[in-house]
């Protein structure tokens, strides 16, 4: 076995040093009645060729591949990943290190994460960003728990029904066993969240919106923030497509107290939904309530600039059950990857790329409407939108699939009231020609 370096002679010599008769003898402290009896049902070991062949077979069982045009977002986006990002993020000095407990040996990771925190804070308009959470959904759950910690006595939070349904499911799983109540807010004909009932909800610690929301609609964050603060609750915003903030006003500038979401769009492959990147930041007064790891700048013995993990007194290994969260391992290399991607884009590039996503999306939306589809929500959109077709869209969708195009996501399973409505997503990967093909199928 090529990963196991011991020769029989070395094993014998080491056993002699230890005073054990054989390898099995090393386990004498394990009682007999705890032992594994019988053998496992595992396939025979594969060499590298056989493993490659096996994975090729799994890949060929997929009906989509990297040439498929996927016009579905819904929390996972097909964006171009530059070869530089792929290459740099796979450098093993980064990849095979662990959490930087020994900062003198991990300045690469630490400066890289400090830069990630900084770029993300600038993008989202917040004062502090942590070193990452597992994903957008658990980040939202942790944001609401943080809101409940800050608000202390309150036991209830409200979340928009236009937040990704999976994110809301994770919020319920995290909050309800601890005795917190999660209220859902309806959406309007514009696709934006209806906040008119907020005043009737007492005991509210925090209210969460997603923008652009699950329907792609850009929420009125500033107006919502005023309404939410007006009832004395914290304003939490989340996102699944942070590229939007290359173009749109960011949540911090609209008054959000806690901002979180999924950063997979920034140089990370969809990979069937993970690993992604839980992005998480807040306004300064709440820094010590943050979950997760933080990197801070400091100096070494000789006065040189350096970085360490800091404010650990919030964390599980110091505060035990009083910690702000139980998270320790997070999505380190994904945060570093996102920073590499944002550095490659730059301020000029992120504007250009966001604009391109917006313009292409408008093009498809207009084309589909011209072909007879109805735009479901009137609110402004970024790179996703919902339409309804005059006739059954399924046959056209099947024909497009045969051309390696996945045309939208049927919302019926997620929102029964939106059966036969489709959520589309357009990124820079989708050409005008592909969009014209879809519109032609709809018009056919």
């Amino acid at each position: 076995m090529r990963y196991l370096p011991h020769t029989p002679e070395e094993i014998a010599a080491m056993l002699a040093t230890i005073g054990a008769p054989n390898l099995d003898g090393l386990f004498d402290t394990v009682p007999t009645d705890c032992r594994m009896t019988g053998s496992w049902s595992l396939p025979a070991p594969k060499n590298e060729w056989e493993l490659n062949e096996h994975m090729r077979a799994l890949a060929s069982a997929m009906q989509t591949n990297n040439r498929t045009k996927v016009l579905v977002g819904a929390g996972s986006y097909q964006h171009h990943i530059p070869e530089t990002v792929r290459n740099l993020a796979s450098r093993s000095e980064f990849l095979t290190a662990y959490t930087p407990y020994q900062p003198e040996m991990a300045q690469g990771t630490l400066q890289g994460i400090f830069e990630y925190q900084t770029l993300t804070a600038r993008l989202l308009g917040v004062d502090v960003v942590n070193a990452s959470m597992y994903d957008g959904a658990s980040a939202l759950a942790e944001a609401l728990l943080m809101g409940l910690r800050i608000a202390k006595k309150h036991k209830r939070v409200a979340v928009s029904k236009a937040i990704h349904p999976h994110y809301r499911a994770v919020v319920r799983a995290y909050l309800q066993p601890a005795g917190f109540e999660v209220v859902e807010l309806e959406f309007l004909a514009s696709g934006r969240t209806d906040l008119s009932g907020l005043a009737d909800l007492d005991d509210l610690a925090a209210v969460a919106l997603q923008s652009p929301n699950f329907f792609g609609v850009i929420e009125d964050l500033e107006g919502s923030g005023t309404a939410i603060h007006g009832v004395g609750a914290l304003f939490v915003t989340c996102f699944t497509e942070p590229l939007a903030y290359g173009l749109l006003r960011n949540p911090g500038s609209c008054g959000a107290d806690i901002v979180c979401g999924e950063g997979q769009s920034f140089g990370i492959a969809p990979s069937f939904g993970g690993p992604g990147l839980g992005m998480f930041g807040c306004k300064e007064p709440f820094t010590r309530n943050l979950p997760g790891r933080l990197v801070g700048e400091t100096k070494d013995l000789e006065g040189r600039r350096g970085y360490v993990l800091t404010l650990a007194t919030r964390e599980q290994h110091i505060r035990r059950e009083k910690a702000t969260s139980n998270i320790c391992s997070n999505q380190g290399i994904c945060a570093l990857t996102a920073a590499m991607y944002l550095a490659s884009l730059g301020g000029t590039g992120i504007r250009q790329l966001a604009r391109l996503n917006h313009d292409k999306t408008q093009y498809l939306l207009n084309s589909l409407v011209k072909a007879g589809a109805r735009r479901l929500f009137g609110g402004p959109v970024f790179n996703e939108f919902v339409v309804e077709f005059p006739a059954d869209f399924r046959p056209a969708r099947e024909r497009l699939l045969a051309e390696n195009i996945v045309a939208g996501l049927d919302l019926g399973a997620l929102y029964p009231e939106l059966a036969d409505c489709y959520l589309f997503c357009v990124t820079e990967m989708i050409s005008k020609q592909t969009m014209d093909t879809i519109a032609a199928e709809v018009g056919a």
Partner: protein
Amino acid sequence: MSEILGTGGLILNEPLLWHKGKKGRIGMSIPASDVPAAPIDRHLLGEAVDFPDLSEVDVVRHYTRLSQWNFGVDSGMYPLGSCTMKYNPKTNERQAATPAIASAHPMLADDLCQGTLQLLYELQQFLATITGLDAVSLQPAAGAHGELTGMLIFHAWHRSRGSQRHKILIPDTAHGTNPASAALCGFKAVPVKSDEQGMLDPALVASLMDEDTAGIMLTNPNTLGLFEERIREIAAVVHAKGGLVYGDGANMNAVLGVIDVKHCGIDVLHLNLHKTFSTPHGGGGPGAGPVCVTRELEPFLPVPRAIKVGDRYRLDSDQPLSIGRIHAFHGNFGVLVRAYSYILTMGEAGLKKASQLAVLNANYIKEQLKDVLHLPYDRPCMHECVFSDHKQQEYKISTVDMAKRLIDYGYHPPTIYFPLVVHGAMMIEPTETECKDDIDQFIATLKIITKEAVEQPELLRQAPQRTKVRRLDEVQAARCPCLIGPSGD
């Protein structure tokens, strides 16, 4: 001893990203627009984002230089106790990057994703057979996430029986995350002291276990690197009072093929795929923390899970007792691909051998160093051994000094000051992928360091001296936190 590993090296300085670049540069290709510009409401428009503009070369040099300030398993021995820093096979990276897998979208119909669903299904089966438990959820994204999932399952199981319990027993030899994970579910942690052998005493557990206690969360092998020999008795005590037993399986690397988790009396166990199953730790993640349970607890697992119907795979969410979702999609799928590839490569014999050699390496180190370092629990260990700085205290040398001196010699230090039950703990986990020569050199180095502690203690107090930066002022970092770079800088 042969030539030491550590040298001064050629380490280049590198500024922060925003001190580089020039306005108007770009580091990646953006396609030209092939559609008309669309109007956008000016009230929605934000200001330009304050990012530096860098060229491709700027970006490549920046991160290449940063990487050279880092140390990973590929650089050298990384005996960080409890973290299982074994070699991360390169072929597993390739498998996770398989184009049809890396580009798979998580929201598409099951029929379009048979390959990824088959992988999920088979990995669930593999982990069940390896642990001896019956059913598996792959959603948890890390060990602590698995612990939380386990506690949510405890909560839901008790509730399904019409009871709500408020306490949970947590030994002092359990992992540090356990109390925080339990607290997230509203359980109050009740500490359980280990005895002078580092073992849990069933009588003590019996005295603490009552009908308001949901169960026990223990780590086995525990954080002293010792196997809890009376685990079956402890489990029986907890079960008799209507509680459940949670096993933190972070240390499973010691006992693959040796223990049957179900025979041990454990109801819920999480595995750390980034430890036992060799996936890279990424400077702090992503990991994966699948949860394995008994048949009785299967209905409470997170949804969806992959199932097989005839010769097709699909996702099943129809589980009314389930705790729900704990990840937006299927957990850290790319990590699951790597662990799956590792299991396929190792096979049964390879995995069992890995545990044997991990335990061999740890016991070998323990035997060779116990003359120069104090060994608080002198008994056969599993995959790691825990020393203390007791013998060095008279020279005013503490664990941190020895750890920092190891850096100058080219090693990542062990885990230090954990577990808390050992004062000045130094927890060494070599893993099975280190060969005898390298372990011998590591042992020789620690012996030299203990000698230096007597003869030249200042060398230790001033260490490390060969790194990019020397010891950093952590107090200042926490007192006046500087967590992001200044804007407009």
